[in-house]
């Protein structure tokens, strides 16, 4: 059946901000879908609140709405755009939930909008645990024994009947929020009540624990002719009990016989048919009892998921793109496989390599939270590695994780770890368990004992043992011979040992190993990811490295040159690796833009990245894709074979920037800002001297290489100081330090983070407004792309604070000064490409805080706000164009206001205080656009899932410092119709200003009056500024309660003012929606790339 002709305009929902459990994989899937549907001639309306996405680029969809992803907001868009259909299966759980709400409240019917991919009944059947269970049983398959409960009483009864341990799963939530495993009644009550709370329909499933069983996932696709294919099977190394997003996973499944695999496949086909997913991709999870092979169905996602992104990257089969085509009427056999060109999509990919995905955690950002893993997802990113063997892929993945491991290395000396600690770390799933598995083997634990402790399949344990056995063999040889021979070195490379890892093992250095192996002729070979295990010729240059006899990259290159009839200049773009807090989708966005822009200029673009969730690792984003870890060795292997004419390091965040110096020294042609200039900006001493030379103010500062030096500097400039390690991103380990004691404890922690780089100490300027600037320079001219005024004062990490563009309180004079300084710095540093500067304004004085000669986290936000694609222009400038080649106008007079708000993951980390500081903690961002600051801010809060209240009570409790200013704020709230609830100290100030205040006890006063108010749902907003560094424990309880009951909680006075503005606006102005294209058309956006 060809494409449907009854629909013309399609509404596509994105997934909103990056949060744990829903990351940039949905940008990848949404972008693919948009492109695929546009290609078919459909008119696309897109909604996503996340500005850092490729899909919200104005040229991807026809009507791009950066508006809140709520049913109300989407309803306005439907009313305005009148789409014929909505495609809700590509924007994660968020999109699915909104579509469900729109159906339930009659909006879809009212405006005659059809649901594509999956309709209401289907989604309900798959998502509603009860319906799903019935469906599974109906087709003769098994699910774990379970009961549903809608109240704690009901839940307790069910628990008694089923027996412990039990798993609690709330229905309709993101990535398993609020779920958990309970081993006794006390634990059960806690998790169950949390679960009921977090479920959209106040329902939890209580089920028999199948903890320790083998876990599998199948990616399934179905078309409207009922053709079904399995795209990929995935086996989790970590058994049941650990969220699949937090598990190390392997594709394809390793330990299933064909008979068992086919049974699982048959079950998947039966499930997708019974649930009734009409077209598109689904993910089905199974658990298998290792003792007897009993298979139970765990769950199904009737949409593309994180696993679909992984499966797409692992096989080369673009699930999201095909899902979109199937949704508009095509069948699988009518779609061509892009990679082989001649074969259809109605097949099952087969692979001739092993894929390992490893999650990346950031527990170091939340020291109060335990790094224990369970059924609620905690990881913030992932890396994927491809190798010819599991051993090779695992080691590549571990070094690709960029957490300081060179592979399955020996970061800790196993001899120093007590057996008891090893047992504990094996038994309690945690972020570094894979390394403890090796330590255990080193200490002589039997494979059987390790299996008993971890329930990790013996196959994986033995594979890891093989790595260790080889390591021992190599070391024995080395000890005896004091050298390595060719045979051992080649085997080591085949097993995925990195040069750096081998160097650590024999106390040598990486370059020496690299030179040695090269003289022995041991070079990486590149193989194609081709969906078919070489059965057909592949045309898409998508590679991974391994150590084999045949390299395919060069041959492929010749084919490309022959086809084009010319040799293009090559530019290689280094990506950002796994997402983490501080380095995420924003940088991937920039890398993609570099690829798009350079392609336009006629270059051959080569992308290197290891993050399967991204658009950059889509094989059609650049001309060539190398799915490789971003280490010096892996990048150099590609450089050796591709010999690029230029390499871009400034777009992928800190990851490639950290490689810049070594690549430069190895003779790699880095384009744009030179390594020398990067160093000048990063080296605090040199930078300080430079700023002084051009005569701009900066906070007094110093860089310390020793403890004494640090104390001396702090004493000299006076506390409070801002202390941080150099060469890190996201304010890692950055602190505001108020005294010597805390300085010493900071230094202790920073040692590990900074790895030999000095510690930076700056005077902390209190009560200053922080300003972010993104600009492009070509060596002669500078274009200031955007000036953002932070809402929170300096001291809150820029990645966590909200900001507004254009600045709303800065005088014209200050803005001009900022622009002037930006020009001086950019030209003085000889920046070619992007740069980001952070300023602080206090009174009329401007201080430079930091200069980053690279793409920044705000690059996409500024581009969306102004309509000027900064990253694209910067990439072209780096490749030789001049700013004058673009018709750029610095647009100060935008008619609209854009607010960026950050999204924080606190609900995932119990026990962590939600107070903001100089260390970045947010996982993502949203954008609100409107014609006034208040309206834009209100939208940003809705998008960040902390919609401001329109009525009710506000709890206000501020520190002494803020007491002076709180009265006026409270007065405004009262004027807007709110009641004020406050603690003793703050209420005194408010009462003396004549305000009517309800006084409540703090928790530590012995009662929990306030908590009772919160629990009763009477408090609609919390304004609580913490006092000093040692925040009071009673206030922590309040803030934790805010998270639990999802009450917006504001921890700065500036934030509270913005909220008041927002409330004012939402009370007095109707909520309206507008597309980016409309906003742009109202402004003189002077840019034509």
């Amino acid at each position, binding site marked *: 059946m060809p494409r449907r002709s009854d629909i013309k305009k399609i509404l596509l929902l994105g997934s909103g901000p990056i949060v744990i459990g829903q990351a940039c994989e949905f940008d990848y899937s949404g972008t693919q879908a948009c492109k695929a549907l546009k290609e078919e001639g459909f008119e696309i309306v897109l909604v996503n609140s996340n500005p850092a996405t490729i899909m919200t680029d104005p040229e991807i969809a026809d009507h791009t709405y950066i508006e809140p992803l709520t049913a109300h907001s989407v309803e306005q868009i439907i009313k305005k755009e009148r789409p014929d259909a909505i495609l809700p299966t590509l924007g994660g759980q968020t999109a699915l939930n909104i579509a469900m709400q729109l159906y339930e409240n009659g909006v879809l019917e009212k405006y005659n909008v059809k649901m594509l991919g999956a309709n209401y009944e289907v989604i309900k059947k798959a998502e509603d645990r009860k319906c799903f269970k019935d469906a599974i049983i109906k087709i003769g398959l098994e699910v774990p024994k379970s009961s549903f409960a809608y109240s704690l009483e009901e839940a307790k009864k069910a628990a008694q009947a089923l027996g412990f341990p039990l798993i609690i799963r709330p229905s309709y939530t993101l990535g398993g929020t609020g779920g958990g495993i309970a081993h006794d009644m006390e634990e059960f009550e806690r998790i169950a009540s949390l679960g009921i709370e977090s479920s959209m329909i106040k329902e939890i499933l209580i089920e028999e624990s199948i903890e320790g069983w083998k876990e599998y996932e199948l990616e399934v696709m179905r078309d409207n*002719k*009922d*053709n079904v*294919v*399995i795209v990929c*099977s995935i086996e989790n190394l970590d058994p049941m009990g650990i969220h699949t997003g937090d598990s190390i996973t392997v594709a*394809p*499944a*390793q*330990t*299933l*016989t*064909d*008979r*068992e*695999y*086919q049974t699982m*496949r*048959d079950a998947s*086909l039966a499930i997708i048919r019974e649930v009734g997913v009409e077209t598109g991709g689904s993910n089905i999870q199974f658990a298998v009892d*290792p*003792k007897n*092979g009993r298979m139970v169905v765990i769950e199904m996602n009737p949409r593309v998921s994180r696993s679909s992104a992984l499966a797409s990257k692992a096989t080369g089969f673009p699930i999201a793109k095909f899902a979109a085509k199937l949704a508009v009427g095509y069948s*699988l*056999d009518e779609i061509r496989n892009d990679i082989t060109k001649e*074969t*259809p999509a*109605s*097949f*099952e*990919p*087969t*692979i*001739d390599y*092993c894929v390992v995905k490893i999650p990346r955690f950031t527990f170091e950002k939340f020291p109060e939270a335990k790094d224990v893993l369970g059924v609620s997802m905690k990881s913030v990113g992932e890396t994927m590695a491809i190798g*010819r*063997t*599991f051993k090779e892929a695992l080691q590549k993945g571990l070094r690709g994780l960029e957490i300081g491991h060179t592979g399955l290395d020996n970061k800790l000396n196993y001899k120093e770890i007590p057996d008891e600690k090893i047992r504990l770390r094996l038994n309690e799933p945690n972020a570094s368990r894979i390394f403890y598995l090796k330590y255990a083997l080193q200490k002589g634990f039997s494979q059987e004992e390790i299996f008993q402790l971890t329930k990790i*399949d*013996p*196959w994986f344990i*033995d594979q890891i043992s*093989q790595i260790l056995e080889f390591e021992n063999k190599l070391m024995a040889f080395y000890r005896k011979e004091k050298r390595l021979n*060719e*045979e051992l070195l*080649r*085997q080591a490379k*085949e097993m995925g040992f990195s040069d750096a890892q081998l160097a650590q093992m024999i106390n040598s250095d990486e370059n020496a190993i690299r030179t040695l192996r090269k003289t022995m*002729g041991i070079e990486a070979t590149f*193989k194609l990811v081709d969906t*078919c*295990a*070489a*059965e*057909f*010729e592949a045309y898409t240059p998508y590679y991974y490295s391994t150590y*084999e*006899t*045949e390299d*395919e990259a060069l041959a492929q290159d010749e084919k490309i040159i022959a086809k084009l009839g010319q040799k293009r200049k090559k530019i290689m773009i280094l990506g950002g690796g796994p997402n983490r807090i501080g380095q995420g989708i924003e940088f991937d966005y920039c890398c993609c833009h570099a690829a798009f822009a350079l392609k336009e200029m006629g270059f051959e673009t080569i992308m290197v990245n290891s993050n399967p969730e991204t658009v950059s690792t889509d094989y059609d984003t650049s001309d060539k894709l190398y799915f490789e870890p971003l280490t010096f060795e892996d990048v150099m292997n590609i450089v050796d074979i591709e010999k690029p004419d230029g390499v871009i390091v400034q777009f992928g965040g800190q990851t490639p920037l950290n490689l810049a110096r070594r690549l430069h020294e190895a003779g790699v042609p880095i384009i744009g800002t030179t390594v020398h200039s990067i160093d000048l900006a990063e080296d605090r001493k040199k930078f300080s001297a430079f700023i002084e030379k051009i005569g701009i103010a900066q906070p007094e500062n110093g860089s310390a290489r020793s403890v004494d030096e640090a104390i001396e500097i702090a004493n000299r400039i006076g506390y409070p100081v801002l202390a941080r390690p150099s060469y890190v991103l996201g304010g890692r380990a950055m602190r505001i330090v108020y005294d010597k004691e805390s300085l010493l404890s900071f230094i202790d922690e920073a040692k590990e983070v900074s790895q030999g780089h000095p510690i930076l100490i700056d005077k902390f300027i209190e009560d200053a407004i922080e300003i972010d600037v993104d600009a492009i320079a070509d060596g002669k001219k500078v274009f200031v792309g955007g000036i953002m005024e932070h809402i929170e004062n300096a001291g809150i990490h820029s990645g966590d604070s909200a900001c507004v563009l254009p600045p709303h309180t800065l005088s014209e004079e200050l803005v001009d000064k900022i622009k002037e300084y930006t020009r001086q710095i950019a030209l003085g540093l000889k920046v070619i490409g992007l740069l980001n500067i952070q300023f602080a304004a206090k009174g009329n004085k401007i201080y430079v805080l930091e200069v980053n000669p690279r793409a920044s986290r705000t690059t996409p936000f500024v581009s969306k706000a102004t309509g000027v694609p900064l990253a694209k222009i910067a990439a072209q400038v780096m490749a030789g164009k001049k700013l004058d080649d673009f018709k750029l106008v610095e647009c100060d007079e935008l008619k609209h206001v854009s607010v960026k708000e950050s999204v924080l993951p606190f609900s995932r980390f119990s026990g962590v205080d939600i107070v903001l500081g100089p260390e970045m903690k947010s996982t993502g961002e949203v954008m609100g656009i409107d014609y006034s600051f208040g309206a834009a801010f209100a939208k940003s809060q809705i998008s960040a899932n902390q919609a401001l209240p329109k009525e009710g009570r506000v709890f206000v409790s501020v520190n002494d410092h803020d007491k002076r200013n709180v009265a006026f704020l409270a007065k405004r709230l009262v004027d807007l119709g709110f009641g004020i609830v406050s603690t003793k100290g703050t209420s005194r100030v408010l009462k003396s200003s004549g305000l009517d205040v309800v006084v409540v006890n703090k928790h530590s006063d012995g009662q929990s009056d306030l908590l009772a108010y919160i629990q009763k749902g009477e408090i609609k907003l919390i304004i609580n500024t913490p006092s000093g560094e040692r925040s009071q424990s009673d206030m922590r309880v309040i803030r934790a309660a805010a998270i639990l009951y999802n009450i917006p909680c504001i921890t700065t006075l500036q934030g509270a003012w913005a909220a008041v503005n927002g409330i004012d606006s939402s009370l007095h102005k109707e909520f309206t929606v507008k597309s980016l294209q409309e906003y742009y058309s109202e402004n003189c956006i002077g840019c034509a790339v």
Partner: protein
Amino acid sequence: MFSPKEPFACGCLVSKMKKAIIYLEDGTIFQGRTLDTKGETAGELVFNTALTGYQEVLTDPSYAGQIVVMTYPLIGNYGVNDQDVESKKIWVKGFIVKEFCRKYSNYRAAKSLNQYLNENNIIGIEGVDTRALTRHLRVFGAMKGMISTEDFNPASLKKKLKKTPDMEGSDWVKEVTTKEKYIWGPKENFSFKVAALDCGIKFNILRILEELGCQVHVFPATASAQDIKAVGPDGLFLSNGPGDPAALPYVTDTVKNFFGVVPIFGICLGHQILGLALGGKTYKLKFGHHGANHPAKDFPRSRISITSQNHGFCVDADSLNKNEVEITHRNLNDNTVEGLRHKKYPLFSVQYHPEAAPGPRDAQYLFEGFIALMKEHKKKK
């Protein structure tokens, strides 16, 4: 890949004791290492792209005379068990993988793959760049090759390889067919009596027929029409098997006796034989279809099945009489014939393996189709 002029230029460095080489008839040499088995073996090299099912592959009689290269690099992960066999022995001449798994893991496993190969005296080698080898076979076509763990001299290997017969024109059925007729399935209380011509029949075909209520009389491929008719079958089944269908005129002639007499169902070689018996021709594919992911379209049912395939020969679509024979299935990858039926007689066949084992079970409905034909036939009787 290495040109014959510079053998051993590269490849895995393995100690002499374990070294093994693959010598291809075009002179190309690949290196690997043997685990335990030593010696020499020759056959036609084919690659199989299935991710799972190595035990079924090893025991599938259709691989007689062939050396199989597995494209999935990690083989042996789930060991070998007593159930997943497709015949009583291993038929492949040799087995080439990237890495044999040292420690298997599966609750049904009885032994390791290495032990299994060893016990059956089959040479299995690992450490081979199987992707390079597969690409070579794809580009230059399936060809004869030799694995040796003893003789590494190309000239001498070349001589030895010359003596190995070509696949084209070879009758491998006589090697694999049962010597005596036997009965599979229930002694009584069955719904249909099926006569099966064993050209290398896979157990799973028999298992499925049994499940569907059939008693199967399995005949040697050389059985005469009279012998078969003597048991009074409700249907005739033509099995899969190895080698060139054109080398089996004795089977083709037998089959002709049953047109319009009883319903006929053929699989793989059985399908090719039926094609020949209906007056068509067969030809050799460049490198064949060996895997578990081939899309085959069933045109009458307008349905696509993901199929298990294992064949080096194919029925020529143009050679069939269009007035009598209808092409019912095609492979969507290369459009080759995957199934046919007669417009008048109750007979049909498919080139792929609806019995799966290994591979997807999408097409098992075809067995039900056979049952339906027999039911109708019985009614008419």
